[in-house]
């Protein structure tokens, strides 16, 4: 099974934190790394680890929010992948506190891929490895796919009603990403930003929540918003 099929299989049928955990497990299995975590950095304050491959991964990941520096924070700030082949490299001084802390846990390689929701860089998929060295091309490409897929559980977790939702056997991350990447959905998201005075990610969460509530596709709801056939209420 190709890498991206295995990543999809990990999240399909699951929602929120469980989907995020399983995606992290799949990353560890597929990319020659030792730990993976998905974390959110939203408007500075609302941040933290949403999913992980296990307790060590969660600890490596949460540490950056305690220390105020680390791969997820940097990847979101710079809007780019952050790739550190070896934290023990004397020239590698980007995290003066976080770097030595991870080295004390025997982590040498750290890689973060930004996660986007509604065009906003809102979090990252963080990968940790005990052995130094770069991700190879195939694993890097796979990690980019995993970060793309991570947008779906992240949307679940941003939606208060879906936060503790049970797994949904019908959920399909690929179909969902495809639907949410349509131009109409982005346009309707922009209209909601203007109507509700919220950020784009929040606007998309609202659009998607409405689609769930009425049992229609996000694309159909987007078209109705654009044609002013429906109007979502402000909170």
């Amino acid at each position, binding site marked *: 099974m190709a890498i991206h099929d295995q990543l999809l299989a990990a999240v399909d049928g699951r929602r929120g934190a469980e989907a995020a955990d399983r995606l992290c497990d799949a990353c560890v299995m597929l990319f020659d790394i030792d730990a993976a975590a998905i974390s959110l950095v939203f408007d500075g304050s609302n941040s933290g680890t949403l999913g992980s491959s296990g307790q060590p991964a969660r600890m490596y990941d949460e540490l950056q929010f305690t220390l105020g520096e680390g791969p997820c924070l940097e990847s979101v700030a710079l809007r780019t992948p952050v790739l550190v082949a070896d934290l023990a490299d004397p020239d590698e001084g980007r995290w003066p506190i976080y770097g030595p802390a991870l080295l004390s846990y025997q982590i040498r390689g750290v890689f973060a891929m930004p996660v*986007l929701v509604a065009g906003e860089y809102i979090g990252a998929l963080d990968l940790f490895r005990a052995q130094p060295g770069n991700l190879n091309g195939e694993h*890097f*490409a796979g990690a*980019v796919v995993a970060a793309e897929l991570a947008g779906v559980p992240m949307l679940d977790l941003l939606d208060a009603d879906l936060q503790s939702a049970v797994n949904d056997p019908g959920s399909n991350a690929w179909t969902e990403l495809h639907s949410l990447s349509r131009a109409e959905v982005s346009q309707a998201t922009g*209209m909601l930003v203007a109507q509700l005075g919220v950020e784009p990610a929040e606007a998309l969460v609202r659009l998607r929540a409405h689609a769930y509530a009425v049992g229609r596709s996000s694309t159909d709801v987007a078209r109705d918003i654009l044609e002013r056939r429906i109007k979502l209420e402000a909170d």
Partner: protein
Amino acid sequence: MTETPRETRVLDAVVSLVDSLLVDFDVVDLLTELTERCAALLDVESAGLLLVDPLEQLRLLAATSEETRELELFQLQADEGPCVDCYSTGQPVSVADIQAEADRWPRFVPAALDAGFASVHAVPMRAAGIVMGALNLFGTHPGALSDADLLVGQTLAHVASVAILQEHAPTPWTVMPQLRSALTGRILVEQAKGFLREILDVSVEDAFTLLRSYARANGEHLTDIARRLITDRHSRPVLIAAISEFASAQPS
């Protein structure tokens, strides 16, 4: 044998050079090929690329010929000659008859005539508003560059500029994040269309035209305007006012 039209030969050269930019390439090797293509397309005997160094001296990067006499001719232009003028003005320089310029360039002209050249031209290479160097062309008979020749020369000079600035060949580590970033730009533009539809009560099509012409009129990037409109609450009111004013000034 039927002659291939020049248009086809120019496109063939551009496609082949740009093809090389998309895979692993060596900058000197590629630019040597570019000077060879240039000489063939423009009916000049010799072509060279001179690049400015950090001390603002023009230095030879690649040329059609490695002959000592010709290399010397390129090197002489660190001090005087058409490339120096082209570099300092940022404009093309075309000298139809070298002989007539002996007073202007007392060292360059005798050396060029000695080497058997009668005409010389220089086309600027630029990036980010900076002149990076010049594409230098030598002909064995007198004559100016036609407008069409100048366009071909300028096209190849642009390709050379891109090659120099992209010396690090694309890799999976750079290509995929760039693709994602480009697609994110499109998402922001779509959101901005919806946003303007709501605020200005225009169609999404008109919103796009408005955004694009506003960005161009202000020398800004379309995606930057979209990003500010969508994500920057502080500058949003001012930006909306500016776009509304721009819209009402447009002929409808």
